[in-house]
């Protein structure tokens, strides 16, 4: 390559690498190193080894009792749930003709366009705790309950509502990728498969559809992991407080914000964020294993 080629390569590459390093790589590195320190944002961080991690595991009752189980339940339902739902909806949409398909796809995609903040407004009114709340009103008029339920303040319902709202908004770009994936599978592959003895739609999905759209399935899986963990703030948004009522909707993200920005224990919060990163990484490894290209 001549020197001119080097020059333009550097010019094209520099902005991305610079920003990527500054705002993604370095923060991750800082998070990892801060997690070994005690840091209250005022004094210089002091090295305390693994204490933060030890404390999270042995001392932090809230974390073990509420935050970790909540995060696991939430992400195991919302992640795979949203993913399977996205695939099934995309597959069904592919079976109908173009006009209605476009309209229905737009409708299914629209919730993911709405901002978390805007959603909190709508959902808060629907689940509002007095009788002017839509759900309460509906249930009372249908005679299921006699007095309004404090949906968003009661530990019993908060997690369920968080899961419903997140699933509702989870048909994002991953869903679009899967839809176009299904649509673009060559018809001839199906024909060949039927000659080879495939009998029903279920076999068709397992043996043809999914393997033929692995790249889109992988992309969808990655987006599902990402959206699941980004939805972390929903409990705080809905209930309007951090910590959430009796920690019912407390996820790692909220716990992290609680310690970092409310109690200013940055070292501890950094250790939590490292755990969260490991968590996400583990999830996406599983996704990669399931849908990644083997070759």
């Amino acid at each position, binding site marked *: 390559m001549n020197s*001119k080629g080097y020059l333009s*390569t550097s010019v*094209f*590459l520099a*902005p*991305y690498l610079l*920003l*990527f390093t500054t*705002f*993604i790589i*370095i*923060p*991750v590195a*800082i*998070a990892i190193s*801060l997690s070994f320190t005690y840091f209250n944002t005022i004094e210089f961080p002091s090295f305390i080894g693994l204490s933060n991690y030890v404390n999270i595991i042995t001392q932090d009752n809230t974390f073990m009792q509420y935050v970790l189980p909540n995060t696991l339940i939430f992400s195991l339902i919302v992640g795979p749930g949203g993913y399977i739902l996205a695939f099934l909806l995309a597959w*069904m*949409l*592919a*079976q109908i*003709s173009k006009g209605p398909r476009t309209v229905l796809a737009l409708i*299914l995609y*629209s*919730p993911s*366009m*709405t*901002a978390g*903040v*805007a959603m909190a*407004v709508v959902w*808060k*009114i629907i689940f*509002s705790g007095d009788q002017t709340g*839509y759900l309460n009103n509906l249930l009372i008029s249908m005679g299921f309950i006699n007095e309004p339920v404090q949906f968003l303040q009661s530990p019993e319902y908060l997690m369920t509502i968080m899961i419903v709202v997140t699933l509702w908004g989870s048909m994002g*770009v991953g869903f*679009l*990728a899967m*839809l*176009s*994936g299904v*649509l673009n599978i060559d*018809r001839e592959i199906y*024909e060949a498969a*039927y000659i080879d003895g495939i009998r029903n739609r279920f076999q*068709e999905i397992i043996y043809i559809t999914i393997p033929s759209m692995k790249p*889109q399935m992988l*992309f969808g899986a*990655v987006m599902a992991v*990402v959206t699941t963990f*980004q939805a972390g703030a929903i409990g705080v948004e809905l209930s*309007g407080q951090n910590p959430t009522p009796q920690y019912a909707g407390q996820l790692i993200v909220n716990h*992290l914000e609680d310690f*970092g920005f409310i109690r200013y224990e*940055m070292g501890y919060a950094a250790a939590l*964020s*490292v755990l*969260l*990163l490991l968590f*996400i990484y583990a999830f*996406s490894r599983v996704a990669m294993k399931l849908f990644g290209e083997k070759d």
Partner: protein
Amino acid sequence: MASFHGTKINPDRFHKSQLKFYFILIPIAILMIIPIVYIFSHAFKPIDELFAYPPRFFVQKPTLQNFQDLASNTNATGVPMSRYLFNSIVVTLIVVFLTVLISTMAGYVFSKKNFKFKNTIFEINTIALMFVPAAVVIPRYLLIDEVGLLDTFFAHIFPLLAMPVGLFLVKQFIDQIPDELLEAARIDGANDFHIFFKIIIPLVKPAIATIAILAFQAVWNNAETSTLFVDDENLKTFAFFMSTLASDTGGNSVAGQGMAAAASLIMFVPNLIIFIFLQSKVMNTMAHSGIK
């Protein structure tokens, strides 16, 4: 073909065998759209309908009062809504434009050039695709403080520009442009900049549309930057303003709820417009880029 009774994927016209899918899809679609319809309806409700008992879903006597209230509302620090809206629009335009440019430029060299550590860097990028900002929010705060971006307009812009998923998508797309095409251009005397602007950009328009949508959604809906990195009310964005309407007034104050509804509509509509405008291109990207 007579023996083939198999899949009816992507049918040309309606057939009654499709009815079962409509039976499942339409109820789900209705569930999905209810809150959206509600946003529209709620934003136009006059005060007595907002607090009507029993609550009404659809607006009876639509009014623009909520939008007027919102426009004339200033919060405790005296910053008018238009200021937040202006900030949001400027930030969004800059971020979308630069993100698209930066990712496409990097995508080009990652796809068509060789340099040291190319594969390693791309691998790191692929891993970074899965990291969520929430996990690194604290170090990011420290870093933004350190480089002097705290409480400036640029705090809205710089942290959002590197979009791993954007680079990932556009690189895959450029991979599909045959090298011969670029070689031919080079023989005709085109340098990298010519090739980039005259060949690459026009050919990857669908990928660009996708990144534009993703970047738009990320920045337009971002209230976090204003909350964490910016103290000056004059520099905060509409998404932030929206979140204060929702929390400060708690939906309890009479005027607050109407304004919050109107503001959520203002938040939502640009997303919808951008998506409808670019959606056919997006679908195209996903289908042909072969995201591998």
